[in-house]
């Protein structure tokens, strides 16, 4: 992929001095095949750019179009210019890194200072539309629809949608955004219910029941002041709103009770005189409130610091135990002429070669109270994962099982690099085997092992699978159902964002940022002691 202009460009700054060659550093023009491939790839990338621009153009998103054009332009510049040789190699990886790691990190930081959550998702206008649609009550002459409840995507988590047919058998689809006509739907002529519609999953009565809580809060906004709500599982009505927004006072008035809810732009919701709020709010910045809650609010601070303490203890004890077991096994096998060593090695490394995800689930089931292997073999009825300390021990045990083979492999490699004569010389000088190991072998071993121990610690500090797949962070004490005894910070974050009745993205993002900070501190301290940074200048 060299271009012939390379010969004109000076070697990159700082390049090792070498006698100038007639054709510069990279003389060749590359093969014909290479040039063709390069042209083809650039063409493909351009096509991708056009594909990316189309939906943005339809939505009038000029910022997005500008971004796409800038990225395509950057790619063209890098691969057609002769002076950007290092960039030709770095750009593909850096583009992905920027889009899906650096930007999300920055976005996490900006989310962490907002109240983004289920009740505070969109902007104020969307909140008002939702409030008005939700307050719809039936008038005597309300239009009725036959209702089929459906979702977009998964029946359990997908967004709800109402598939509606009116008296004239016209089909509509209602979502949180509004009402639209539905074409190509299959309607059962007897009941008038929609049986199949492209892009929607029709729910069975059992699935509808499972989502009845969501259904209670769901309404389809129609023209101003009106909306469609369900009454029962198979009919819906359109009515007028009892709660109406008035722009002049920036408030919502409930025409039935006469209560007035004023907008509070600091908290992002409508509040009445008594301090009661309407469920639908909007997203506002809250500064450092999210962080303050975890550090200062007594309930949350005690769960946060409790989890942090266990998190450090978990990572430290797993790291220590896998190191001890792995090293012990490596030392046991580190002897000439041990029969069956190859077989032992394979058997001992086996846990590392199994799928860790499946093995965590297996360990969880072995600890099962009623059917688990341990209880049946020992004839017990212990609820291993139901008690805080036995659950912690179980999580650690499973991780030692999965983790020690790696340490064994690494320690074996490190032991082989240490000349055997050193230990023998110490023994000739009168040291016992333990002394020789403690004072000669171990210090040499630690030079190679320290960076790996730090990496293992950092890995286990955020080892989501280890806890989530075995105990889901539980057991939970009755007075604090959000923070469990084996919760790591990362599983706690995950639960706040994706596994609670109301998703609390703002708090979850603030927790993520705090994990960033904690891991950074640990890494900076440990990195400054390792040699890794010196390699940069090599």
């Amino acid at each position, binding site marked *: 992929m060299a271009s012939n202009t390379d010969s004109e460009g000076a070697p990159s700054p700082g390049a090792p001095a070498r006698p100038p060659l007639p054709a510069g550093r990279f003389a060749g023009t*590359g093969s014909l095949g290479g040039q063709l491939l390069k042209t083809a790839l650039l063409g493909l990338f351009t096509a991708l750019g056009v594909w990316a621009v189309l939906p943005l153009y339809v939505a009038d998103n000029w910022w997005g179009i500008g971004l796409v054009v800038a990225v395509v332009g950057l790619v063209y510049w890098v691969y057609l210019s002769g002076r950007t040789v290092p960039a030709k190699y770095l750009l593909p990886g850096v583009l992905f890194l920027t889009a899906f790691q650096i930007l*999300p990190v920055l976005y996490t930081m900006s989310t962490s200072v907002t109240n983004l959550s289920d009740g505070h998702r969109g902007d104020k206008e969307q909140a008002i539309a939702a409030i008005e649609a939700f307050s719809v009550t039936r008038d005597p002459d309300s239009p009725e629809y036959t209702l089929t409840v459906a979702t977009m995507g998964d029946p359990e988590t997908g967004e709800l949608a109402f598939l509606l047919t009116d008296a004239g058998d016209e089909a509509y689809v209602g979502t949180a955004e509004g009402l639209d006509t539905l074409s190509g739907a299959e309607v059962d002529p007897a009941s008038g219910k929609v049986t199949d519609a492209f892009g929607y999953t029709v729910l069975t009565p059992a699935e509808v029941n499972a989502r009845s809580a969501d259904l209670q809060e769901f309404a389809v906004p129609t023209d101003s002041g009106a909306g469609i709500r369900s009454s029962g599982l198979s009919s819906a009505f359109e009515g007028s709103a009892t709660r109406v927004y008035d722009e002049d006072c920036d408030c919502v008035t409930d025409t039935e009770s006469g209560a007035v809810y004023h907008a509070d732009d600091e908290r992002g919701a409508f509040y009445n005189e008594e301090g009661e709020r309407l469920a639908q709010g909007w997203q506002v910045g809250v500064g450092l409130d999210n962080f303050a809650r975890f550090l200062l609010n007594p309930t949350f601070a005690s769960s946060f610091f409790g989890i942090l303490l266990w998190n450090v203890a978990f990572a430290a004890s797993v790291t220590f135990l896998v190191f001890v077991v792995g090293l012990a096994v490596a030392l046991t096998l580190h002897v000439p002429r041990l029969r069956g060593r190859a077989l032992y090695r394979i058997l001992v490394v086996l846990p590392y070669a199994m799928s860790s995800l499946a093995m965590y689930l297996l360990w969880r089931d072995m600890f099962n109270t009623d059917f688990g292997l341990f209880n049946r*073999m020992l004839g017990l009825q212990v609820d291993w994962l139901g008690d805080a300390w036995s659950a912690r021990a179980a999580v650690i045990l499973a991780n030692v099982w999965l983790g020690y083979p790696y340490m064994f492999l690494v320690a074996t490699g490190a032991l082989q690099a240490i000349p055997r004569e050193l230990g023998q010389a110490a023994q000739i000088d009168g040291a016992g085997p333990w002394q020789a190991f403690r004072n000669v072998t171990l210090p040499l071993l630690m030079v190679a092992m320290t960076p790996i121990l730090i990496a293992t610690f950092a890995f286990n500090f955020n080892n989501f699978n280890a806890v989530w797949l075995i105990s889901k962070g539980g057991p939970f004490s009755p007075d604090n159902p959000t923070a469990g005894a084996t919760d790591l910070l990362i599983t706690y974050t995950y639960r706040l964002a994706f596994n609670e009745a109301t998703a609390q993205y703002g708090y979850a993002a603030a927790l993520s940022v705090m994990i960033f900070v904690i891991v950074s501190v640990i890494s900076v301290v440990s990195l400054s002691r390792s040699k890794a940074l010196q390699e940069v200048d090599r």
Partner: protein
Amino acid sequence: MTVDTPAARAPHRRGAATRFALWAKRLGWRHAVMWLVAAFALFPVLFVVSAALNPLGTLSSAQLWPTGASLANAADLFRNTPFATWYGNSLFFAVSNAAITVLLSALAAYAFSRMRFKGRRVGLIGLLVIQMFPQFLAIVAIYLMFTNIGEYYPAIGFDTRWGLLLVYLGGALSINTWLMKGFFDTVPKELDESAQMDGASHAQVFFRIMLPLVTPVLAIVGLLVFISTINEFLMASVFLRDTETKTLGLGLYQLVASQRNANFGMFAVGAIMLSLPTLAVFWFLQRYITEGLTSGAVKG
């Protein structure tokens, strides 16, 4: 380190008991320890194999030692779940992420190892720093980003393969790039310099000279990425919510979450199937493993 001069002097006088004592002191205890460790290592594996073969297919009837052999669980798994789709999804993510990550990482490592340019030092340190922010910590932001992206481009939104693959590729440049750069540094510069003198372009040097010489590190990075992708749960669980789009790991989780006792036999078959690719990759790459791991890769 047992002193064996007496034995050399009078071998015929040593009885069987003494010989056994010597053997036990020098090697015997090692065998005993290894039997113990091997038992610890093997029993869950044995249990999962025996549960997979167990004709009853429940958790409560599974024994440590196989009591019967039947393929009923495997047949159930194929009949009652979209197993083939799940498996295909898992392999798709693991193979494509490993292959593309190796390519992107090797490209970057070549630049960092062989070229001197403005921003090289910052780039290398930046790669280390970004390691402190594991991608999955930003999952909330990634989720919110893809809620918007999915509206514009349904092809890379939730419940699609390409969306999650793109996210995985965001982690392509990582500590693995450092690992590769370290290995590239050990290849003598004279090799590519002489090729350049002979008229090779930088791309030809990279593809024809460097890559064949650094195969071990490519293999080990590929292995690590393959393993971590096939075992990835967090981001996959947020992205893939449709039963049809799930990976095998998510599918197995769902399987035992609903019916833990009854579905255990099917789960055990699935667990073995999920481990097979990893075992195979290990088997083929075993000669690289110790070497590659000791250079500082991360797992467990």
